[in-house]
């Protein structure tokens, strides 16, 4: 028995027939082909699978695809504006916050939600917001730097 699902993914309408028990993570990766969303643990702990659903952060490994029917999902692939990288993406590159990069999609999506809610976070607030995103490589130093730099750039862009 397959269910019909219709939703917005990165601003485009998408419809599919899926098994009702399909996880949002597997739906995005294997049905839609958006493999930028990563699976680190599959149990809601590491944050690599984080996507944005109608402005809320969601762990796609714990969410069924049918639960987001009719909603708008933003994945890492939807963060850039065409060819133009999102300031967070650019700052992650410029600050060397990306090593193996497996955690980067989840971190960037999470940081984006933080900056939407709090455009001028302190370092402690950034660390708090990212505490559910595991990174094995970086020691978080440059990730924090990159998020703070992106925040400051986004604030000055907003004032222009």
């Amino acid at each position, binding site marked *: 028995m397959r269910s019909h699902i219709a939703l917005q993914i990165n601003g485009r309408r998408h419809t599919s027939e899926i098994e009702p028990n399909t996880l949002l993570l597997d739906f995005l990766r294997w049905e839609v082909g958006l493999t930028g969303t*990563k699976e680190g643990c599959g149990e809601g702990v590491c944050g690599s699978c984080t996507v944005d659903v109608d402005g809320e952060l969601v762990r796609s490994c714990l969410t069924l695809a049918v639960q987001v029917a009719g909603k708008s999902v933003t994945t890492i692939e939807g963060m850039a504006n065409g060819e133009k990288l999102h300031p967070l993406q650019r700052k992650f590159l410029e600050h060397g916050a990306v090593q*193996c*990069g497996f955690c980067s999609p989840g971190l960037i999506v999470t940081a984006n939600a933080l900056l939407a809610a709090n455009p001028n976070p302190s370092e402690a607030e950034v660390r708090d917001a990212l*505490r559910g995103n595991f990174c094995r490589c970086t020691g978080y130093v440059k990730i924090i730097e990159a998020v703070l730099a992106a925040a400051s750039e986004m604030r000055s862009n907003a004032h222009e």
Partner: protein
Amino acid sequence: MNNPTEEFSVVGKNVIREEGPGKVTGFGKYAIDIEFPRMLWAKVKRSTRPHAKILNVDISRAQALPGVHAVVVDKDCPQTLFGFGCYDEPLLARDKVRYIGEPVAAVAADSEAIAEMACDLIEVDYEDLPAIFDPWEAFGANPKTLIHENQANYRRVPIGPVQYDAKHPNAFGYYRIRTGEVSKGFEEADAIIEKTYSNAMMAHATMERHNCISHWGADDNITVWSSSQAAYPLLNQISEALDVPHSRIRVIIPKYVGGGFGGKIEMKAEGLCAVLSRAAGYRPIKIIYTREESLCWAGVQHPFEMRIKSGVRKDGVITACEMFVLVNGGAYAQHGFLVTRQASYGPLGSYRFPHFKLDNYVVYTNNPPGVAYRGFGNTQIHFALESHIDELAHAIGMDTYEIRRRNVLHENEINAAGEIQHSVAGAELLDEIKSGLERHGPLERVDGPWRRGRGIAFANKDSVAPSASSAIVKIHNDETVEIRHSAGNIGQGSSTTLIQIAAEFFKVTPERVRTAEVDTWVTPYDQLTGSSRLTFAAGNAVLMACEDVKRQVLKMASELMQATPEELELADMNVFVRDNPARLMRVRDLFRTVFFTGSFLPAGGELLGKATFTVPSSKIDPETGHAANDGLRKIFSFCTRAAQAVEVAVNIETGQVKLEKIAIANDLGKAINPMSCEGQMHAAISMGLGQAISEELQISEGSILNGDFSSYRFLTAKDAPSNEYVSTHIVEIPQFDGPYQAKGFSEATTSPTAPAIANAIFDAVGVRLRHMPMTPERVLEALDQLNTEN
């Protein structure tokens, strides 16, 4: 090889990494993201017994499950043994199982879920054998069981003394070092300390789990896409395990690999999936290890037991050191014997020991196998040694910086293994961390539950020799440069390092240089992504290949420019007469275009430079572990050194330890990309800190209790100190034979962290923790013991 005084335009700059955009946009494909038409999914049926005879494996119900295309057991696999220097492991358990988690059978099915169901339907009858988990028990002359009965007949690579000793029938590796006469050294000492240090088992915990796709083609060629960190070692292991020549195997490693840390060197399921592929009618087979498989059964960090006895004079000079090290290798050798060898030399790269004696055994037990882990055993050895040095300092009442300054090696000094030391950073690193930490003001001791203390540690890491790396450099007709090299870019940024090296050579911008995807049918041999060797070995190979292609360019241009090649120079893809730079031509004009089929090179086929860089080593005396006095006196390619100073807060009520401040210094010859180097150094405050205070695979009777991310204590951004209290110090002491005088260093970034923290805990609360991780329970236990003693 190059002029150190010249001004660089690309080397030493913070170039954005080549594969970065693919990572931040999500468009880069890791092996885990790849999928093919007609692909099937594999799962492995694993042993539930630590040591047992296999009486029967019934696969009939699994085979009958709809959607299952192949089920294989040992008899369906080539009857080979593979390994990494000690050949002891079958693709699937043969006759008996030796650890919980050992692959016994494998299934290929339409989906992961069906494959898993099929695994559940496989019935294995076992007859339990006595099992050994404790390395001391395994080490005895008459152990209660032999884990590999046939060990004496195993094929091995001959390194060091005889590796199989009937007196220790469960030991599979042995190294010894002998210098002077330790008893004499102890006589000269004013204080003698003897202590034992140890560590728990730790997981690599790469964020991308181990995975691959193997395809046995109908043409009998095998193609493998893998998340591996080392293409050629993998190729070689597949070849040995399947008994298929290299030429028929193609290993492709995508540009995107989600971490390695030593945990992705050996073959995992690549060979097994190839067997499944053929059994399933030549369909591609994909496997993604579960998080549990990836944490527990794809190789772990070796637990070490390290007994150190040393003597020190009142003036801080170490007179003798005697070490006995026992490594719990787990059920198969894998990298165990190399880890043991590397760790044996670890102490000798740091300090001067007039009298030194080391015996280091690695034993089989019924634990999951240990593999390489960032540092190849040096993390464990330096935890012991640096804690011990601190104990020596306290015994004679000397400052902990001072005792290290007294004993660190100097430039060109010959160490206790007869090896000459080059590019030695000692006092320089200690000075950096001292000022780095003092920048934040003096230590303020306060009463209350949180007590503060400071500690330091030094460490080093030798990079393996002999070592070999090949490179091909191609100049395209648009004057861009392509590097073909098999360096696994697992997150450390090696591709960009190589790009910067080539861009500097050609005097072009890094945007005009790219690396090819690692593909053993295209990219040439590289020994290994490991041992911190890529910047040095791959970097040198790329430079040599650049030289080679430049020679070809100058020769071709000389014919067109009426000049000898010696009169010509190449920069920014202009060939010009050195004495008259106005006489020039562009490299692209070497190509000719006819009609509409693109351009070609009139002679020579392609502008293709090729080279192999090798590092020899001296003959090593197996009895003493010493390098021969052959003019070279070389055991390793190079040695990198590191130091860290930390301030911790210890909660005397809960036992919790917090890293508050850290100064990190690494010696790396020349930072090709400082931003990338700093990034590697910051691993101290994730992996190093985790190792120090929280990460442990809890194992009981061979069964791991916390093989998932909710119970394996992985550190987060909240556990790390604020950026304000992290100071990162790159120390550049030129490596005379490195590319642009650079060398690798990334393994040495995590070794000093745990001992520095142990030393700081002692400073804070007066207890010495000799086992890592130093968890709250262990800290509390030690505090309780201290209180009872007082």
